[in-house]
């Protein structure tokens, strides 16, 4: 039977003390909200750094795969996808 891999979360350098230095962790979650909840379970303190009032912190964006997630916490993930927390980008 094929193994279904969980989303892979890339941990920003300032948060790596919370993961004992791990740069990439596999975390279950059908959407970003669930991924963050599960991150918090494994690495307490994560949620406070990523969220404010159950939304992503202002100025923070999340990329699922190669695309910036337009639905924020509600963005669907999927097996094997990469998740990156990045500065929000505007433009001129």
């Amino acid at each position, binding site marked *: 039977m094929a193994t279904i891999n969980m989303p892979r979360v890339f941990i920003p350098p*300032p948060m790596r003390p919370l993961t004992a230095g791990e740069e990439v962790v596999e975390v279950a979650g059908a959407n970003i909200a669930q991924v963050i909840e599960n991150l918090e379970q494994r690495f307490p303190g994560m949620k406070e750094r990523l969220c404010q009032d159950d939304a992503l912190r202002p100025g923070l964006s999340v990329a699922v795969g190669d695309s910036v997630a*337009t639905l924020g916490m509600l963005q669907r993930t999927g097996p094997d996808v990469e998740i990156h927390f990045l500065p929000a980008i505007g*433009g001129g």
Partner: protein
Amino acid sequence: MATAENPKYKVIGTRPVRHDGADKVTGRAKYGADIKLSGMLYAATLRSPHAHAKIKSIDTSKAEALPGVRAIVTSADLPAQGDRIVELGEGAANMRHLTANVLAREKVLYKGHAIAAVAADNIHIAEEAIKLIEVVYELLPPVMDVRKAMAADAPILNDDIRTASVGSAPAAKDSKPTNIAKHFLFEKGDIAAGFAKADVIVEREFDTAMVHQGYIEPHNATALWNTDGKITVWMSTQGSFSARQQTAELLKVPISSVKVIPTEIGGGFGGKISVYFPPVAALLSKKSGRPVKLVMSRASVFEATGPTPGSHMKVKLGATKDGQLVAGEAWIAFEAGAYTGSPIGPACMCVFACYDLPNGRVEGFDVCVNKPRTNAYRAPGSTHVAFATETLVDEICEKIGMDAADFRIKNAAKEGVRRVDGPVYARIGMVETVEAIKNSDHYKTPLEGKYRGRGIASGFWFNCGLKSSASATVNPDGTVSLLEGSTDIGGSRVGIAMQLAETLGITAEEVIPTVGDTDSAGYCDVTGGSRVTFATGIAAIEAAKDIQRQLVERAAMIWEVDVAQISYRDGGVHGPDGKFLSFKEMAGKLHATGGAVIGRGTSSAATQGGAFGTHCVDVEVDPELGKVQILRYTAAQDCGTAIHPSYVEGQIQGGAVQGIGWALNEEYWYDERGEMRNATYLDYRIPTCYDVPMIDTIIVEVPDPQHPYGVRGVGEVPICPPPAAIANAIYAAVGVRMHDLPMSPPRLSAEILKKK
């Protein structure tokens, strides 16, 4: 030739006359300064003469007593905001800072900071009244340099700022305030091991001056606060919905009570996203009971709106002698201006974005200084860092004896490459833009002559998706009225109309596009991030598909068949037994088949792929004067699919010219008191037609798979390569490596003298 990646279109790729062309060339188009309302008052703004001071008191009594003065506002009239952070569609705003930037509260943080505004019967009375307002200041030392502002003993601008980062721990409550508002860190691979593999390492420090977007039309707003509580604002803005939200948040009124009517816009380039005047004009209107108009002076546009930051950067690159990049490191500090918000995040993400770099480390800082609060400017942050990286690439190429185009092709980012900030690229066109330059007539033609040199450089921008809406109403004569809410800066109206026309199989001229106000059009995020042709285009395509579905249902009724037997293609509905009705024929049957057909579409889930450009420039340097003449310029850019090639070319040319100005002349020139000494177009020198040759363009089309027609944003990338391309050309001409912008005659001649 049409291919799977570049299919053949009927409307897309053609060059129809723009729908707003007649109004623009006859002067009938309405701009903000053209607004005149019955009983309208004119307002003027009192601005700080100091770069850094506490406001001890403001006395408006003498101004109020001047005949003809109808209302005066200060920050006391604006609601307190507390520590609110508000998402504004394209980035978040700290409302405490935003309101203090509109009208200073306890402190002024830059020369030109607005303090009070007066509405009067005419502008002359308003300007006289401004002089009668008495402000008592306690002067504070200004800090104008980004590195000095980072020092532990630097004067602090904002007591509420603590350094924040993506994923950093919250600051302790008893921590000291700082000017370093943000810190970013990105890492990939093993930086030490990477540099250990390098045969050549170059490391340089770079400084770039603060520069302005240089739009020709100044900021303006006319507001009417009606007795029913409704506020109407006419203004020049890059985003009427963002302006509505900012105005409502600043005034603490419901968003539905504010209506923003966007006028035509005379340039923005990122500088017309933040609001300055609408809440002030609205409050003056509320106090006076009359509509109030504010138009900014050119000096205030320079001193008090949102230029792009100056910067200090240290960048290091390593490569093997056969031309393989092995490691890169960057330390970047940006001047945020008075309040946090420089584009340091994107700068960090762009600095090595053109390359497949196996090992990288990037650190960035957003630093408050006593200059105006910075705003976006075309590919915010990317031009600064492209100047650094691309000149280092040129130096590496010289040291290992490799052609600069070949080096870039060998190391170019491509699909599957992981950026230093983490994500992996989808289909992109960096390689194709370098190849386009390498194969161009320009690059193949030898450059001859003394003090002449050629340089190339590349640049990257992400491009944004964000949210857009459009609706389209079918008219009985076979035309379509298209309504959308994206203010049209660079010809987007026609580009969006063409996508709707392509989808319906009609001509661009048969679409009548209108940019609506916030009560008429569906929500659209700002016109910025090179997003409108992409995202509002998708919304228009969806609206067209909605029309298709409705026309199929109408045809099923006419032919008395099931809808499954009907399809919409090639400009009409096709039914069984060869039945066909064109779009125009179906439009003629609207009223007989049920009335209006209105399509609607939204775009919220799409995100764009990034875009790349590579430029080639020939220069001639006057070694005595240090003046640089641009002899020839060619810009190649991946545009996905060029909807209207003329406007794609125009965007590339405009961006390149702005980049040339940034490279050679433009800079905010401050004295030791923090006063800008060149706040006019006489002294702040943007390029004119006498300074630049025709910018040749090469449109490279690598369609973005995330758009139905493959569109990529165009507007921002072309400003990124020019400073580095020109620096590299200057080196080729006179053997001087320039590490500071602008490379103005005094600065370049000094470097040439040093070399002698």
